[in-house]
Structures are given as C-alpha cells and as structure tokens.
C-alpha cells in the first residue's frame, strides 16, 4: 500500500470526524449520509472490514443512518446543543484540557501545546471558529491537514503527524466513552463507536506490521476512506488557517473581583491571552492585597467547562443553537408582541447596570434586582433612618464589636475588612455574635449568644432599655445628631404601649438570658471604640426592618457613627451619566408597581406566581440571576416562569431559570468585560474592571447585548457610544481620576478615611457629588423612620411575632434557615471546579440533641418537610446550631452544570429554602423568609 493512498484515506476519515464534531451536523452532510449509495457502501464496508472494532463502529453508524427519519436531523440539532453547548445534563466536554486531569476546567496546558504545534506547522486556528485549539475537531482537522500534505507528496510531515496522533490518542479514546455515555439520540453513540474503531485502527497502523500480523489495518483504513469520500467534506482545512500567530505577551492586569459583592482589587496574570492566575491588588481599599478562595479561583469560573457557548432557542421543549442575529431578532420580535409593562426585567447582578437598566427602564418594564432577595428589610430601616444600607464597622480601631445575624468572616465584603476583624479579636477586642448558628464568625468571637430567629429586635431594644435606663447613652450625639429620641425612649421604656422592653421581656421572646442581655448592653455602652451591625440574618425573617432599626439604634444611642471603631459613614463618589454632551439618555418609561408592600415600592419577586396568575406579568428577561433557586418557593417560581409567554435568560451558565426560558443568550463572565464603579470601605475609590481576556466561545458582554437589542428596537440614538470607553470617559467627567489611571492602577483613591465626617458635612448625608444607597431626611439619625411615618407604618422599632402560619407548631417544630459558605456566592459559583472540590454539596445542620431524639446520625438521609414542600438531604448533627433550629448552605441544587452532571456524582446539593411558603415575604421590603421556614425532619429508612 502506498503511503500516499493511506494518507489520503486517513485525511478523509479525519476530516469527516473533524466535521461532525466541529458543529451541528449540516443538513447537506446529513442528507448525503442518508443516500442509498452511501449507506450501501457503508454497510458493505462494515461487512468486509478486518477490524472488529471498526466493523462495530461502521455498523452502528449504518444502523443509525439507515433508520433515520424525516425529523432526525432536527433532533440531532437538539442533541448537539445538549452535548456540545452545555444545554444538557451530561455534556461531552470535547477538550483535551478536560481529559488531561478529568477536571472540568478548560484552557489548560494542552491548549498551549496545541498552539505551539500549530505554529511549528505554520498554522493557526481560524479565529472565527469559537472553540479553543484543543477542541477535538481542531485536533482531527490538524491531523487531516497533515495527511492531506502527505497525500500531496510532502512526506516530511509523516513523523509530525504520527507523533501528534500518538500523543493525543488517549484523551480522544476517553472522549468517545463520554460521548457514548452522554448521547440520548443514538447518532453520537454510533459516532463514538465509529471514532474509537478508527482510533484503534490508526493505532494498529502506526506500529510495525509484524506486531499486528495477520491483521491489515491499512487496508481497512483505505476501505473506510473510500466510503467517506462520497460525503461533501471540505477539501481544505476548515478550522485552521495558514500562517503563524505569535503568542501574546504575558501581562499582569490590575482589575477587580466580581465573584461576590465585596469587589476586592485583583491582579490577573495572562499568558498568550489566557488567564493563568489571580491575586490581590496591593493598595486597593477593599481587598488590601488579599483575595478569598472565590477570587483566587476565578480562572476556574472563566474556563469552566460548563460555560454557555452560543445563543440557544427552545423548540419542542429542547434547545438548539442559534446565531446571535436570529436569537436577538427573536427576542425583539417576541418582546414587541406583548405589553412591555408586563415584561419584568430582572437583573441579579449590577455589572454595567447603567446601560441595561437604561434600556429596560425606558421600555417601561417592571424591574427588580438582587436587593429584594437579599436584605431589603435591613434597607427599609437603614436607608431612611441613616444614609446607607450598611455602614461598615471600623474594626481596626474597635474594642467592642456586636454582630447580629451576620457572618462577617464568611460574608466578608472585602478581605481587608475581614482581616482587620480577625486582627481586632487577636489584639483583645471583644466580638459578640448573636446568631442561631455558631457560624465561622461566632466561632471566632469572644462570645456566641444563640438567639431564636426573628427575635433580634427584642434583644436590641432591651439593650437600649438598659443603656437609656442607666443614662449611658451619648447625650451630645443624641441631642445634636439624632431625631425622635423622646418617642423612641417612650417605646423602649414602654410608655407608649405599656410594655417596657426590659431584658426579661426580651429573654422570654428570644431565649437569650436576661442577665446576658443586660451584661452585653452595659459592656457595649461602656466600651470606648465600638460598633453594632447586622445583615441578612435580620432581613430574611418576618421582623427584619424593625430588628435592623433596633440594632442600629444602639449605634445612635452611643454615637458610634464615624467614631473610631464605629460604623463608618459612606461617601463614595457618584459617577456622571454615561451620556455626554449632545447625547440623550432614553427617558424612563412608566413601569407599573407590581406588589403592595408596606415600605418598598418596587417589585418583590417572591410573589412571581401571584403576579403571573393575576395577569400583571406575561414574561421576563432575566440577567445574571437564578430566580428558581433564589426567589422563594422553588415549585411556585418554576410554575410562574412556565406560565409566562415570553422568557429570556442572559447568563454565562445554564442556570435553572435559563432551562425554563425560550431564548438563552450567553453572557461573558466578569473577567471578559469591563466597567468602572465607585466604591468605599473607610476610604473611597473608583475601581476598574478590565476585560482581562477576550469573551470565550460566542459569549458577549452585557454592554454589547444591550446595544444590539436597542438597535433592533430603533433606539440607537439613545445608545450612541462608539465603544464602551467613550461611555466610561463620560462617567468620569469632573472626577479626580482618568480612565488611563484606572487602567494602569486598577483603582484611584478619591477620598481618605476620616472620623466624624458628618461634623464637617453638617449632616449624616454625604455632600453633593457623593453617593450612598440611602438618605436621612433630617440629616440626623432617625429613631422614628420618616418614610414609615409617611406610609402609615409604625415608625418605631418593636418586636413583632411573625405570621401565625409561619410559627413552629407540633407538626413542624423546627425553624429552618439557610446560610452562606465562604466557597460560594449565592447560586453563581457552582460551576467552578476548584470551589466545588472544596464545597461540593450541602448538609442539614441539626442540633445533636434534636438528632438524638430523632435517631438521626451523621450522613443519614433525611426528609426536610414544610407545609409547602419537601427536600431530601443528608444530615449533619452538630452542637453548632441551637436546638429547634435547622440550617443548610444556600445556592445548591442546580439541575445543570457540575451539580447536575451525572459524570461527577460527588457534586450536587439541595435547595432547602425552596420549600418556603409561596408568595410570601416579610411585609416591609419583600425579602423572602429564607431563615424562617417552619419544618419537620424525618429520617429516611430504606
């Protein structure tokens, strides 16, 4: 057999394999494979090949194609999306970088080896092909190209081709096994058999003939090549281009993390345009040169093998690939068919929100954000009584720190602040944590005080009672910088409701001993540098707003705002509008108010099913959030989305919400798009997010997606920028930094930390040009919430029992609450393999006494039931949670991605908050009651 003839045969086979794995199978190729001529020759080959492995593969392909019907090609486009575009449960991950360690992170060492290999052959991957160089199709195409050259007479490539084939054989074998396992159509199973037959045949052909005698693999290869030669395959390489591309220079790029809301400074190192590592950014006010596990593993987020790669459109209940033009045209056409005031716009993440919110506000879509899922109850107090949702405590100076329902060490919001908290405890500052669970912060604390959920207001008011009764409050501050003290005092002392808020009163409600309440009140009042703070532990329960107000009243009574060791008043700079001179921001449309909460006027998404069933919402565009896993009762939210007539999701991953949508648009991750953002901790700075790497696959930044939607809607005049940097330049007008400075340093500190800023400002509100999330109408701390007063709501803090139907009872004796783990952020980090290795599942925390009574042991499978749903989960008996309380880490439970992939059964958790009462929140801010779900727990016996 001539080498050229063999090379030509292998060229044809490899080109065929490159073609079928590079993209959806084309209608032309499918049609050609259905012709009688092709099928006859394939069948004949399958009957005459010597190799039984290749015979099996050829026969499998024949059987499938012979039985294929008129709808088969369509079905294969769905299957391709499932297998190759990560729409399905078990994607095949066709990259050598995955198989090198069988870890689902791409862009590993094989990518660089492949690039180098191509360079040596004066080739490069076609930049228009959106897959990386170590994609199986590129490797087959490279081999095809080498065989083409050999068949054309260039025998010098034979060794290169043989060496490459050997070095890249093993992973392709494993790929075939994965493809065979994952396919549900039969077609790709047949291809897997066919491919593995070919690989083995090629292997046999590569060793000396005497080692495989009497078989003749070369004859089989030629026979197979002749069969496939009848197909319409590209004569020239279709994934590779001639010429070399030099490696991009290594770079160290200052940027910021967006894994969570902490927004720590970050340096990103790249090699040949690929993100290699991330580390802290020195001097940045948020991280102070530190990054947590999430930021440090950002590479595994960007290069997660589960990224969405191309726009997807759902047909007949399954996704297929679409072009951006087709997908965007469909979104706009469908959107126009409905009343825009009935299409909700949900953005879970505010990356570049200045542009996408402008579009949907203009269209009149009701909008919701992360806020009413997180801590809106807190905000309904702090943003009206004070000037910000959450003034951070200056731990560096503090000697007494009081945390209510807040796990600072894990929740962090800035690694510099967390480090300062730990250092403060190390140097002897007292940290007191009130929490039903011995969280990581409670474990660090000098004192952990277990407290029943939603009773924090009682304890905080009782502390105020002690402080006021003993005359230990800061009379100068109260007199000059607070409003409504006398009314508050009456409430605390029981003069307005005949109910003095004594420690004994609070003890009966909260379970915290009265002596403890009295003691910590006195300790707090007598400490010199102190601060009290709360977060979602007080928000995601029925009495959140009042508990927050009561807690913050401790700071007001003691005059801790902006004092050393106290909560630092925010004063971040305001960016100017992105619309410059002569540019017209789109006017706001008139979005209807959907929900009737007592304080919050916006859309509270936990009521989604009500809103859909009552006709207020017909559809939704959801950006970077997963309502199904985070908005409330999972079944109710799912039902609501299913009932919608129009549903679009923009995300980097196939989240549970995306699964329910008709169109899914692949968003770039935050390391593939840029923004500028003002921020603060104790100082203020403007932070920069660099486009560290070019968006992967066919993903696009939200800026681009918004511009394209606007253009299709005829709104281009309102979105006039040549590029995003023009908009940035507009935003920075008049501010003490330039875009070039931000790009060079990653941040520019605009204001240094200062004590007692309010004395200079003459108000607790920051001056013009500075922003924060709230505003005190009096310029002072308001013991009496002025907005509550306007709305006819009791403006003074108090303890209120939750709704009777949410209280525990004989049938449901436990209150369940979710909590956060350091290794994850909400529901957005569950495709990062490194984070999942550290935190790959969740368990139900139950007090050991309760577990003993229920005969539950570590690792037992239990059923957690509420009146509104149930979930099965493994138990974790522990002393670190109060009796009567259950807990589990939140964010788990994805159907797709690493959690849903059956190839990795070690990963995957449950979503216990999804069994909360449907259409239910706390009644002020619309926050779901994630930490107040009445439940019972049953051991599952098999």
């Amino acid at each position: 057999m001539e080498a050229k003839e063999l090379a030509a045969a292998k060229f044809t086979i490899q080109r065929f394999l490159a073609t079928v794995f590079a993209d959806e199978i084309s209608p032309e190729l499918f049609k050609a494979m259905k012709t009688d001529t092709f099928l006859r020759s394939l069948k004949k080959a399958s009957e005459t090949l010597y190799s039984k492995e290749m015979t099996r593969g050829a026969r499998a392909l024949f059987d499938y194609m012979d039985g294929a019907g008129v709808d088969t090609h369509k079905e294969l486009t769905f299957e391709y999306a499932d297998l190759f575009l990560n729409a399905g449960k078990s994607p095949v991950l066709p990259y050598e970088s995955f198989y090198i360690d069988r870890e689902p992170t791409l862009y590993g060492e094989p990518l660089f080896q492949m690039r180098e290999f191509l360079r040596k052959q004066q080739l490069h991957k076609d930049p228009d092909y959106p897959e990386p160089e170590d994609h199986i199709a590129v490797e087959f195409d490279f081999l095809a190209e080498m065989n083409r050259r050999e068949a054309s007479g260039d025998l010098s490539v034979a060794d290169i081709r043989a060496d490459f084939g050997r070095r890249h054989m093993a992973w392709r074998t494993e790929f075939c096994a994965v493809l065979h396992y994952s396919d549900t159509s039969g077609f790709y199973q047949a291809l897997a058999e066919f491919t593995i037959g070919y690989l083995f045949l090629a292997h046999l052909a590569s060793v000396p003939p005497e080692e495989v005698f009497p078989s003749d693999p070369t004859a089989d290869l030629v026979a197979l090549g002749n069969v496939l030669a009848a197909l319409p395959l590209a004569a020239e390489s279709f994934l590779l281009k001639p010429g070399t591309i030099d490696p991009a220079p290594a770079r160290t790029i200052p940027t910021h993390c967006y894994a969570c809301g902490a927004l720590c400074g970050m340096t990103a190192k790249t090699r040949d345009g690929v993100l290699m590592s991330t580390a802290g950014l020195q001097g940045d006010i948020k991280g102070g040169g530190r990054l947590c596990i999430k930021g440090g593993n950002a590479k595994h987020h960007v290069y997660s093998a589960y990224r969405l790669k191309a726009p997807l459109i759902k047909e007949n209940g399954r996704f297929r690939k679409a072009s951006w033009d087709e997908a965007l045209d469909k979104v706009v056409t469908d959107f126009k068919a409905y009343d825009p005031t009935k299409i909700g716009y949900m953005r879970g993440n505010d990356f570049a929100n200045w542009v996408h919110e402008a579009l949907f506000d203009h269209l009149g879509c009701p909008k919701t954000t992360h806020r009413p899922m997180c801590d809106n109850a807190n905000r309904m107090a702090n943003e009206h009584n004070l000037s910000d949702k959450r003034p951070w405590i200056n731990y560096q100076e503090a000697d007494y720190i009081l945390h209510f329902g807040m796990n600072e060490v894990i929740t962090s919001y800035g690694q510099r602040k967390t480090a300062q908290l730990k250092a403060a405890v190390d140097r002897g500052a007292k940290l007191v944590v009130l929490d039903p669970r011995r969280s990581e912060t409670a474990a660090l604390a000098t004192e952990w005080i277990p407290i029943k959920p939603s009773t924090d207001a009682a304890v905080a008011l009782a502390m105020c009672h002690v402080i006021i009764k003993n005359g230990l409050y800061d009379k100068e501050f109260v007199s000059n910088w607070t409003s409504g003290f006398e009314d508050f005092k009456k409430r605390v002392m029981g003069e307005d409701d005949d109910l003095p808020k004594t420690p004994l009163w609070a003890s009966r409600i909260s379970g915290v001993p009265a002596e403890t309440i009295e003691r910590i009140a006195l300790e707090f009042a007598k400490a010199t540098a102190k601060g009290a703070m709360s977060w979602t532990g007080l928000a995601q329960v029925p009495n959140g707003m009042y508990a927050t107000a009561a807690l913050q009243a401790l700071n007001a009574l003691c005059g801790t705002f902006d004092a050393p060791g106290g909560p630092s008043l925010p004063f971040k700079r305001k960016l100017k509008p992105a619309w410059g001179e002569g540019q017209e921001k789109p006017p706001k449309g008139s979005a209807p108010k959907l929900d009737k909460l007592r304080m919050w006027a916006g859309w509270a998404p936990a009521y989604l099913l009500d809103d859909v069933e009552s006709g207020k919402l017909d559809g939704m565009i959801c950006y970077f959030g997963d309502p199904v896993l985070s908005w409330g009762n999972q079944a109710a939210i799912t039902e609501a989305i299913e009932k919608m007539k129009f549903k679009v999701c923009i995300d980097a991953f196939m989240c549970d919400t995306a699964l329910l949508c008709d169109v899914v648009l692949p968003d770039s991750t935050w390391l593939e798009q840029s923004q500028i953002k003002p921020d603060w901790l104790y100082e203020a700075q403007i932070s920069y997010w660099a486009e560290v790497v070019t968006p992967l696959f066919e993903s696009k930044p939200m800026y681009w997606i918004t511009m394209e939607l606007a253009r299709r809607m005829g709104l281009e005049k309102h979105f006039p920028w040549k590029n995003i940097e023009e908009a940035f330049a507009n935003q920075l007008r008049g501010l003490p930094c330039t875009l070039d400075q931000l790009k060079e340093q990653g941040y520019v500190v605009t204001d240094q930390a200062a004590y007692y800023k309010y004395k200079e400002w003459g108000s607790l509100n920051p001056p013009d040009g500075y922003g924060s999330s709230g505003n005190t109408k009096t310029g002072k701390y308001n013991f009496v919430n002025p907005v509550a007063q306007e709305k006819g709501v009791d403006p003074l803090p108090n303890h209120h029992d939750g709704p009777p139907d949410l209280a525990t009872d004989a049938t449901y004796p436990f209150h369940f609450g979710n909590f956060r783990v350091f290794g994850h952020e909400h529901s957005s980090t569950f495709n990062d393999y490194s984070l999942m290795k550290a935190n790959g599942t969740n368990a139900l925390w139950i007090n050991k006494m309760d577990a003993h009574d229920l005969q539950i042991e570590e690792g037992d499978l239990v059923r957690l039931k509420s009146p509104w749903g149930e979930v099965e989960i493994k138990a974790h008996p522990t002393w670190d949670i109060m009796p009567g309380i259950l807990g589990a880490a939140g964010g788990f439970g994805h159907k797709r991605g690493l959690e849903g992939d059956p190839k990795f059964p070690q990963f995957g958790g449950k979503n216990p908050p999804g069994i909360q009462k449907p259409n239910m929140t706390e009644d002020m801010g619309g926050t779901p009651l994630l930490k107040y779900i009445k439940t019972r727990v049953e051991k599952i016996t098999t």
Partner: protein
Amino acid sequence: MAQILAYDPNPDMHWEVVTSLGHDVVSFNDPGETIDYAQDNRVDIALLVGSEGIDMIKPLREISPNFKAVLFCDAPEIMEIRRALRWAPCSVLFMPIVKEELDACLKRALLKGKSTIKGRLNL
C-alpha cells in the same frame, strides 16, 4: 526510575518496553499474585491489561486509595472503557504498547506526585 507492577493475563506478554524506559518492572499473570505483591512492596504505578486489569483497580485502591494505574486494551470496547473510567485510571491505552505514548503517560502520572490521581468519571 519508577517501581512498576505489571499485570497481563497473557503469559506471553513481555514488558521490555517498560525497562527500556529505565523503570523497574515486576510482572504477573495472576491477579491474586499481583495484589499480594502490591500489598507487600513499594509500587509507584501499575500497568494493567484487559477487563481483568480493570477489576484489579478496586483491590489496589483498597491497599492505597490513590494507587495509580494505567489500563491497556487490546480489543477496545466502549463499554469497557466506560467502566474503566469509573476507576480513575491515569490513562487508557491501546495495545500494542507504543513506547513514546507510555513514556509520556508515565511521566505525567508520576510527575503529579504520589497522592494525586486523575479524576474519575461515572460513565
């Protein structure tokens, strides 16, 4: 140089290719003897052939949970490869052994340290 344990049910199998790469190899045709040897001796990596070779990973991992193993198949069947990948082998290679391929495989497997094995796939 690594201490390599080799198993092939075929008594005619020879492992000169392994020694030619500079490694010490001890080979067996009997599964029980192979496991016994692994129990009592230092082994850096095992080379296991065929379906019986796949079966041997479980007892080897009982000796050490991170026991490294390379699997070989001389008549690859996709269901067998799927089964093999559940046991987190370093690699699944075809017979006859290609020296360069084995060399690259061993270097990579041994480079990653004693306690690290590749991931397993539940196929």
